[in-house]
C-alpha cells in the first residue's frame, strides 16, 4: 500500500515537471524580439548566416522538438549563459540559491517559533479573547506588505538606532533584518496551520483521557496534543514552501540581498532572459521537489494519509 502510493506520487511528479518546463518554454518563445537579430547586434543578418544560426540553435525545428531539446538541456545542466556576464546560468543560480536558502531557513525557524508559540497560547483557550487576538495578529502578519515592513525595519534599526546593516550579505548581522522581515509575513501562516492541526487532535479521546488523569492543561497540550499534531504541522508548512519562497523574492530586493529572487528581478531589468527563466525554473523545481518529499514523508509517517489524499 505504502509502495503503491509512493509510486503514484512519483509518477504524478514527472508529468507535472514537464508541464512546468512547457509553461516556461512557451513563455520564453513568447518573448518579444528575434533571438538571431539580438545575437547579430539588432541587425538583420545575411540569409545564409541566419539559416546557419537557426540550424545551430535548432530554431528551424518544430515547436515540440525545440521543447524536447530545451528539456534535455535543462536535465543535463546546460542552462545557457548570462547575456551580460557570460557566466553559465546553472552555476549562477546555484550560487545565488545558497544565499536564498540561508535566508529562508533562518526566517522559517524564527517564524516557526513565534507561530507555534502563538498557536499554543490560542489552543489553551479555544474561542477566547486570547485565541481571537492570536488569530488577528497572525492575519496581520500575512497581510503585511513585505517590502514596506522591510523598509520600516531598516528605518528603525539601521537608520535610527544604527544597530544593524541595511542590506548586503556580510556576516550574521546582515541576515537579521531580512529574516525578521520574512518571518513576520510567514509566522501567521504557521500559526493558523498549527492551531487547526492542534484543535483537530484536541477533541480526541486520548486527550480527554489524559485530562481525566489529572494532568495539568499545559502538559496535556504539550505532551499529547502538540506531539500528535507535529507531523501534520510540518507537512502543511512544507507544502506551503512555495509561498515562503515567494516572500523571499521581495525581501531580497529590499535588502539588496544577493539571492535568487533579486537575481530574477535584476535579470528582468537587464533583459537577461536566460538568467530570469533559469532562476524561475530552478525555484519551481525546488518547490515541487520539496512538496513531493514532504508528501512522501507524511505518507510514510501517517498511514491514514495514503488513502485520504489519493
Amino acid at each position: 500500500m505504502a509502495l503503491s502510493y509512493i509510486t503514484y506520487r512519483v509518477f504524478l511528479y514527472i508529468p507535472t515537471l514537464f508541464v512546468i518546463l512547457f509553461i516556461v518554454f512557451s513563455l520564453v518563445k513568447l518573448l518579444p524580439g528575434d533571438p538571431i537579430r539580438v545575437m547579430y547586434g539588432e541587425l538583420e543578418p545575411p540569409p545564409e548566416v541566419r539559416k546557419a544560426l537557426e540550424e545551430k540553435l535548432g530554431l528551424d525545428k518544430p515547436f515540440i522538438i525545440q521543447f524536447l531539446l530545451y528539456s534535455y538541456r535543462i536535465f543535463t545542466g546546460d542552462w545557457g549563459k548570462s547575456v551580460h556576464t557570460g557566466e553559465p546560468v546553472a552555476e549562477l543560480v546555484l550560487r545565488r540559491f545558497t544565499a536564498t536558502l540561508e535566508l529562508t531557513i533562518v526566517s522559517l525557524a524564527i517564524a516557526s517559533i513565534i507561530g507555534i508559540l502563538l498557536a499554543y497560547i490560542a489552543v489553551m483557550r479555544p474561542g477566547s479573547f486570547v485565541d481571537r487576538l492570536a488569530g488577528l495578529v497572525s492575519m496581520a502578519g500575512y497581510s503585511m506588505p513585505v517590502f514596506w515592513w522591510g523598509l520600516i525595519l531598516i528605518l528603525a534599526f539601521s537608520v535610527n538606532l544604527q544597530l544593524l546593516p541595511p542590506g548586503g550579505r556580510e556576516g550574521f548581522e546582515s541576515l537579521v533584518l531580512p529574516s525578521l522581515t520574512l518571518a513576520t509575513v510567514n509566522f501567521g501562516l504557521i500559526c493558523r496551520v498549527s492551531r487547526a492541526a492542534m484543535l483537530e487532535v484536541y477533541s480526541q479521546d486520548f486527550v480527554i483521557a489524559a485530562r481525566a488523569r489529572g494532568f495539568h492543561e499545559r502538559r496535556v497540550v504539550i505532551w499529547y496534543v502538540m506531539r500528535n499534531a507535529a507531523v501534520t504541522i510540518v507537512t502543511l508548512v512544507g507544502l506551503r514552501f512555495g509561498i515562503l519562497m515567494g516572500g523571499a523574492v521581495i525581501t531580497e530586493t529590499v535588502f539588496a540581498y544577493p539571492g535568487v529572487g533579486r537575481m530574477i528581478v535584476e535579470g528582468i531589468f537587464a533583459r537577461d532572459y536566460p538568467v530570469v527563466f533559469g532562476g524561475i525554473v530552478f525555484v519551481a523545481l525546488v518547490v515541487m521537489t520539496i512538496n513531493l518529499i514532504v508528501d512522501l514523508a507524511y505518507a510514510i509517517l501517517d498511514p491514514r494519509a495514503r488513502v485520504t489524499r489519493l
Partner: protein
Amino acid sequence: MVPKFLISIPYMLRALYREPTTAIATTVVLGIIVLAVLADYIAPYSYSEPNLWKRLKPPSWDHLLGTDHLGRDILSRIIYGTRPLLYVITVAVAIAASTGTLIGLLSGYFGGRVDLLLSRVIDALMSFPAILIALAIVAVLGTGLEKVVIAIGIAEASVFARLARGLMLVEKEQLYVLASKAVGAGSSRIIFKHILPNIAGPLMVQATFTAAAAILWEAALSFLGLGAQPPTPSWGLMLYEAKDYMRTAPHAMIFPGLAIFIVVLSFNIVGEALRDMMDPRFRRVMR
C-alpha cells in the same frame, strides 16, 4: 434564477456589522469604492500637480500626511490611489476567477483523462510561487499596470481551479444533478446553470482573499518598478518613489504602506468572516 448568495447580501452585511472588528473591516472595504468614486470631491489637492516649493514636507495642518518628493499631497494621492486599486482588484480577480473556475469545473465534472491532464497543469502552476509566475509574465509582456494585472490574474487562477474542482467533486454527486441528467440536460447546462450557482458562495469568499493577494502583488510589483508608471497614484509606486528619501522624509514611505496594510488586512478579515458564515460543509474544502 438569482444565485443564492446575491439574495443573502443584506443578511451578510448585517452579520458583518455585528462585531467591531469585522464592522471596521467591512467599512474599509466599502470605503474604497466610495473614495474611488468621490475622489474628486474628497481629496484636498490634485494627485499629479507638482509643487516644488513644498517638497518632502512632514505632516502639517495643510498637508495632513505631508508631501512627497515632488511636493504632491500624500493624502490626496492615497485617496486617488483607490482608483488604480479598484481597477487591480476587479480585473485581476475577474481573470483569476473566470479562468480558474472554468478549468476547475471542467476538470472536476468530467474526471478521467481531462481531470488527469488539467490537474497536472494546476499542480504545476501551484508549484510556482505566485510572484514568480507574475515576474515571468511581466518579463514577456513588459512593465505597466495593465500587464501586471493580467500577470496577477493568471498567477492566482490555480487557487480557483483547485477550489472549484474540489467543490465540483462534492456537488456532482448531489441528487439534483442526477435529476437534471435524467431529464436530458446537457453537460454545459448542468455545469453552469445548476452546479455553478450552488457553489458560487465559496468562490465568492475566495475572491475576497484573492483581492487581498492581488493588492499585495500589485504593490510589490509596482514597488519593484515593474508595475504602475508615474504619475499613477498606485500605493506601491508611491513606496518605490519614497524609498530613496527614507532618511529625510520617512512619512512619504510610511503612509502608503500603512494604507496597503490596512486594506489588505480588511479584505482578509471580511473574507474570513464570510467563510465562517458559509455552509459548514464547504469549510472543509476551502483551505
